[in-house]
């Protein structure tokens, strides 16, 4: 395992598109070569070295490359986007598209993330100690194939559009969420440990949702079918089990109509 450390030296005037900050792009390169990797600030071609001081050489492959960003990346987009292996740790905030389209490896953001983190994710792990903005694990605009696999864990809260068009994988929000959870989803699991404003599972075809707090506005297309005991992410509780969205089309499997399941923690 080899660790490459990037120390932010300058705050970009616009946003820096750091699409090269992935173990895949770093693999097999020396610190000097990494500093030469491309990025964009608006239409200007920049190098990683323009914004970061690079130390340490990368490993032979992505899998044995660890990237540590020792500072804040509030104005750096695409950190760890499309990565397939290795790790990226940011000791601060990160901007949009963290772990977007990622296939493997691990990302740890110690601050907050902006929107579109983990969009179209296929595998790997994305952990954020702070809050995330909107479109966590969402599909790209117009794509009906959203997140397919992997795990996103947000220790804080998230905004709207969580897991839109999701097909697989797991999203865990440890605090609250705003609106639109698993909209249009056809698979996958979303766990919200806090409260949600509403629109949980709208137009959802298949998949699971767990809400451990309250839902302020329930979707009218959800019907309570029973009460079950379940354990999810280390929490054991009694849940009211709803199926839906009854307003949406649903496929049949072995002669049975398949619905999406919403498990809402029952009032004590």
């Amino acid at each position, binding site marked *: 395992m080899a660790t490459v450390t990037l120390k932010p030296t300058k705050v970009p*005037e*616009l*946003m820096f598109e750091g699409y090269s900050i992935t173990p895949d792009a770093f693999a097999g390169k020396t610190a000097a070569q990494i500093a030469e990797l491309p990025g*964009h*600030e*608006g*239409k*200007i071609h920049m190098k990683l070295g323009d914004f970061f001081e690079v130390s340490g050489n990368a490993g032979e492959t992505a899998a044995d490359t660890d990237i540590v960003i020792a500072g804040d990346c509030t104005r750096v987009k695409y950190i760890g986007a499309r990565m397939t292996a290795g790790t990226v740790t940011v000791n601060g905030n990160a901007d*949009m598209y963290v772990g977007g389209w990622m296939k493997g490896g691990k990302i740890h953001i110690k601050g907050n993330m902006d*929107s*579109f983190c983990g969009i179209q994710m296929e595998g790997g792990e994305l952990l954020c100690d702070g809050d995330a903005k*909107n*479109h966590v694990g969402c599909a*790209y*605009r*117009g794509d*009906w194939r959203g997140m397919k696999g992997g795990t996103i864990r947000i220790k804080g809260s998230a905004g*709207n559009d969580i897991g839109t*068009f999701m097909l697989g994988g797991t999203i865990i929000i440890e605090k609250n969420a705003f*609106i*639109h959870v698993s*909209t*249009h989803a056809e698979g996958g699991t979303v766990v919200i440990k806090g409260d949600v404003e*509403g*629109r949980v599972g*709208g*137009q959802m075809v298949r998949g699971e949702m767990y809400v451990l707090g309250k839902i302020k*506005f*329930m*979707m*009218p*297309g959800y*019907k309570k079918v029973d009460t079950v005991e379940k354990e999810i992410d280390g929490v054991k509780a009694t849940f009211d089990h709803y199926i839906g*969205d*009854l*307003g*949406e089309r649903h496929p049949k499997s072995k002669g049975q109509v398949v619905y999406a399941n919403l498990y809402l923690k029952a009032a004590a």
Partner: protein
Amino acid sequence: MPKLIKGVGCPYCGSSCDDIEVLVSDDETKILEVHNACIIGTNLFHHANDPTRPKLPRRRQPDGTMKEIPYDEAIDYMAKTMLAAKKPLIYGFGSTNCEGMSAVARIAEKSGAVLDNCATICHGPSFLAIFDNGYPSCTLGEAKNRADVVVFWGCNPMHAHPRHTSRYSIFPRGYFTQKGAMQRTVLSIDPRETDTAKLADVHLMLDQGHDYELFDAFRTVLRGHDIPDVVAGIPKETIIKSVEIMKNAKFCMIFFGMGCTHTDGRNHNIDAAISLTRDLNEHTKASIMAMRGHYNIAGPGQVWAWQFGFPYCIDLSKGTHAHMNPGETSSVDLAMRDEVDCFVNVGADAGAHFPIQPVQHLKKHPFITVDPNFNMASEISDLHIPVRIAGVDEPGVVYRMDNVPIQFRAVIKGLPGVPSDEELFNKVYERMCELTKTEPIWLAAKEDRRYPESEAVI
């Protein structure tokens, strides 16, 4: 002898009425009378007579005042400023013709700009829903000739599109709707009792921001399932009654407006409306249409989708491909996040329509307005370039709200020396090519549009 010009298009709202008659002075420089148009359209034409219309570009001076400068100097400033910026933003195009929109694309590519239009603060979310879920739509002619149930969801045409109800949606007598308004049932879904709601047979006064839940309730009822007693503040019986009306229609037409596109959920509200339309088609014929605001705001969607593959929020800064993701590449977000360093406002008024913070951010950098008139954006600009008024003294193609192209004509002669949008943008493009020592590429659909030859531009 004054001349009466018939079959004129009105360049104001999305209804794009093309039955206007304009009486002009015999030297074709004054508009004397306007017939058939609503009061907004009438005033728009009379506005062109205003003797105070700007005839020369104005540049802000170090002491804060505006000083008139020649066109060449303005074109040079615009070309240099946009080339120097790391990421310019070009926004607007609510009120200009498709020729101008097509010409601006060259400048946008050359300067690596983000190209956006008023849909970004209007029907942009409808585009996103259409990407996700399709668009089972029709033309306004079909609505007029067939629709016997008309639903206005989150829109108020009585004020925003004054002749929409009389030309297309409620009152006109069509082929299958010979009895006009008598034959049509009108539903209005709006949290306020608007003038359209007063006209409706059924008004569902829902809780503000709960359209998505109400759409879902409609769909759930349509699939024969039960719903809670009250959804979004509307009693279950009213919802069931409304669904029955829509289901038993011969042709149900849903018009939706900014009440859906710019309340919480945005594209998802439209997405649900599109799903509802699709569901209704299992019972009867149903169609849906966005109540686009300006007479040619459907234009940039058509023109740029043809040129770049995306209708709005097009980031061309890479030079190799277009990238579009509203939330990131949309004007207000770019401004709020300080992601652009030059702003060009064309045929729209960002000064009046954007929230104050984005305008404050944009004002840190060069701010250029291209508009025939004085407006709030022009008054805070560093450079204001006047152009001719599309549809009044400049002809051009426009797309009506149902995406039907209409050739608009000019009714009077343009102000001497004032170029059209297209001519101006072509000049700026030529200047950019000179500055970057590159050959201009004039790939154009119309050969005669290769070089602006109008004597007006000297």
